[in-house]
């Protein structure tokens, strides 16, 4: 008997252990995901750059900006470090060590500060992603030349440049303030973040009023009949339709049938609001249901009309729950990318969007685009963008939790 009991107790302990282990496994996976993203994103936050001596004394203030050869100025400044490099192909290789964006940033700087014309000054110029990665120690120089991105000569040049003391490692402003770019050292996720925000605001403006009013209608005014039953079943099913189907709908209806342009946040917001609508409706209905019937009956007894009961009593008490549901729905829409791929928000867009109809992309889609890029430096960029996305979502969800805790009415 006691032997039997000990077997049963051991089984009990095993059972608890299984449950605990599976939770620990889930936690480990979460930690691995976040940890690997943090680890991989480390190279993204800084960028190696070099202070080049820019000589603009030969240029007079009368010259048009278009006529100034900024590229040439930078080239000659860089080549002054290596007077021994003569051949054309070597010079080209040397110039490729610094970012091709250098001449544009110099031009923009001069346009903003014309007083620097006629002067000699130091100007900070970014390295390309390959040189940057080398300085950060991610290039294994013990490998044979063909297996790495930089050959021995380039490595020697980079080391020599470092010995001049002009090479610096600075926080990469581009990552946080720029739009997309083909050059990893210039690319940033600000454009995508703004695109996401515009898209989400369209979603909010459409799905919140429509969702709440639909829920109010179904909960308080709808007569129980076949039509309203059908609407209800429909909404529940819609909540479980895969998101990519909404993308197909957007493509067929908004773009193909109504002829709306591709890649714009307006269409993205429309599609996402159709996707979010069921979530908001279901959340609104359940928080309307949680208001006790006594409130409603008391208001009706005082002579309020149905509409007044809803808008003056039920809705104000249900509002915290409605906001929470809406925020959760919007957070899901914020992280959604599959439907946006289908309506063309996956384009390569450099400019930062500012209106509903500017071509734009969204933060999750930007992650997808970067993850597809072959350049190694984009791995770090993608991880950094991923962390920002997760961080934003945690903030949004935290807001929902706090809202619920602060304003929830307990009956």
């Amino acid at each position, binding site marked *: 008997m006691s032997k039997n009991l000990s077997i049963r107790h051991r089984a009990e302990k095993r059972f608890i252990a299984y449950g605990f282990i599976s939770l620990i496994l889930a936690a480990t996976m979460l930690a691995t995901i976040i940890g690997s993203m943090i680890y991989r994103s480390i190279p993204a936050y800084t960028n190696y750059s070099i202070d080049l001596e820019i000589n603009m004394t030969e240029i007079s203030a009368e010259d048009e900006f278009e006529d100034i050869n900024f590229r040439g100025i930078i080239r000659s400044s860089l080549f002054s470090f290596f007077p021994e490099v003569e051949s054309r192909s070597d010079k080209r290789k040397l110039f490729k060590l610094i970012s091709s964006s250098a001449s544009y940033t110099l031009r923009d700087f001069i346009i903003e500060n014309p007083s620097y014309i006629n002067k000699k000054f130091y100007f900070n110029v970014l390295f390309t992603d390959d040189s940057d990665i080398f300085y950060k120690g991610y290039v294994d120089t013990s490998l044979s030349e063909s297996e790495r991105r930089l050959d021995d000569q380039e490595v020697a040049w980079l080391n020599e440049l470092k010995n001049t003391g002009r090479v610096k490692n600075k926080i990469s402003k581009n990552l946080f303030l720029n739009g997309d770019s083909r050059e990893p050292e210039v690319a940033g996720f600000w454009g995508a973040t703004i695109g996401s925000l515009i898209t989400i605001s369209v979603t909010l403006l459409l799905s919140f009023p429509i969702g709440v009013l639909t829920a109010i209608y179904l909960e308080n005014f709808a007569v129980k009949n076949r039509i309203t039953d059908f609407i209800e079943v429909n909404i529940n099913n819609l909540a479980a339709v*895969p998101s990519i189907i909404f993308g197909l*709908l957007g493509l067929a209806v908004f773009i193909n049938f109504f002829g709306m342009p591709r890649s714009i946040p307006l269409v993205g917001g429309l599609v996402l609001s159709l996707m979010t609508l069921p979530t908001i409706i279901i959340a609104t209905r359940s928080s309307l249901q949680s208001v006790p019937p006594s409130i409603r009956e008391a208001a009706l007894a005082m002579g309020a009309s149905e509409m007044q009961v809803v808008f003056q009593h039920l809705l104000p008490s249900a509002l915290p729950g409605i906001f929470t549901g809406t925020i959760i729905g919007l957070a899901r829409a914020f992280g959604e990318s599959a439907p946006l791929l289908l309506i063309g928000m996956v384009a390569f867009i450099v400019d930062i969007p500012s209106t509903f109809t500017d071509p734009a992309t969204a933060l999750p889609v930007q992650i997808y685009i970067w993850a597809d890029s072959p350049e190694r430096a984009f791995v770090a960029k993608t991880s950094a963008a991923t962390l920002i996305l997760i961080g934003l979502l945690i903030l949004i969800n935290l807001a929902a939790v706090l809202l619920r805790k602060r304003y929830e009415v307990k009956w």
Partner: protein
Amino acid sequence: MWRIDINTDLLISLSLIIVSGLLSFTLAKQRAVFYLRNNEPLRSMPIYHGLYVSLWSTLLPIFLIIFLLFFKDSYLNYLVIPFLSEETIDLGIDEILYVKSFLINNISSLSTLISSGFISEGDANLLVEKYQETRVISFSSLVLLSIILSFVSYKKLSVRYDARRRVERILKFIFFVFSTIAVLTTVGIIFSLIFETLRFFSQVGFFDFVFGTHWSPQTAIREDQVGSSGSFGAIPLFTGTLLITAVAMSIAAPLGLYSAIFLSQYAKPKTRDFLKPILEILAGIPTVVYGFFAALTVGPFVRSCGEYIGLTVATESALAAGLVMGVMIIPYVSSLSDDVMTAVPLSLRDGSLALGATKAETVKKVIIPAALPGIVSALLLAISRAIGETMIVVMAAGLAANLTANPLSAVTTVTVQIVTLLVGDQEFDSAKTLAAFALGLMLFVITLALNVFAMIIVRRYRERYE
């Protein structure tokens, strides 16, 4: 002068209509307040008088504006095409789109079009004139309509007029219209999918699609090339989807269930408060992040593990994608089955414990059997989510359609193919594009069936305990 700017015109008329609505609101409300001051027996509160008039004056015009917004494209077609030179029309639809894009986006003016020779200066003048004519008629008539409506409704108001009931009736109608949007979405989904799918089946045989075992949608560039039609056998896609789903469920089902059991039956409130958010965060992580993680970390890891024990594993193996998808689905399984297990009546649990069963035996022999329909439906919902999941497989599974059951090889899924077929430029007539819609319809039908089935099971379960 050279401007055709429908958006601005619509915006101006919209704001005029809103102004007219606000004006009539204050007018009607003030008159009602005036009645009240004179101690006349006002039937409805002043605000309802105001609302009544403003609703009448704005609703119909705003609806018309939305209507126009959707059909402005065909309106522009109607305007522009007669004025384009015949050569331009012969050039095809792209040039017409180009011309129209100038007009819609009103980038600068028609002058660009004139200088690039798409339209002569005289025609451009005529075009603008014609637009001006219709503009006066359509846009100012909208505003006029709003004013007339507000005037008529204002006339109807009087001291004894039951404005409140009318306003509530109108509002109720608006709410009803909103509640049909969800239905319209479903109708839109079904019709757009079916319509495009039918077009697809006019080019590719139904049985070739459903029972075909070879999938290579890339059509050749020259028509006389071999295999120019591409082949659209969907079987490999569905087996691929099922393979990845099976891997995912073999992770998510045990982990999710055991987590739910631990959280709902064993964990102390403090442990629960600490452990539950972990699952919630897992549920909140965007799928694109999972996809990136799968492609970057799990894929190579699985591959090197396989090499270590002497197996050849594809980098984009079904196993890697399935593993990560399984982790993504754990919270769905656990939160749904947690709910159904807590819903099992306490009397059953207490009865079993009172008979001397251990907690584990109670869970295994009493709670799980009682909650089984709910758990099954939770698993079905999880499966439906795994089948419809897109980003993980797009980023971590392959593109090659292999008909295999080996989780170490690369397979492709329905959603991956939809995305690859539709991302980028495409013509809407090719079988390649239409195939995506056929796949979408299949996906929709399968997930819908799973959801409906899950719902039916839950309903039966409820009847047993209420």
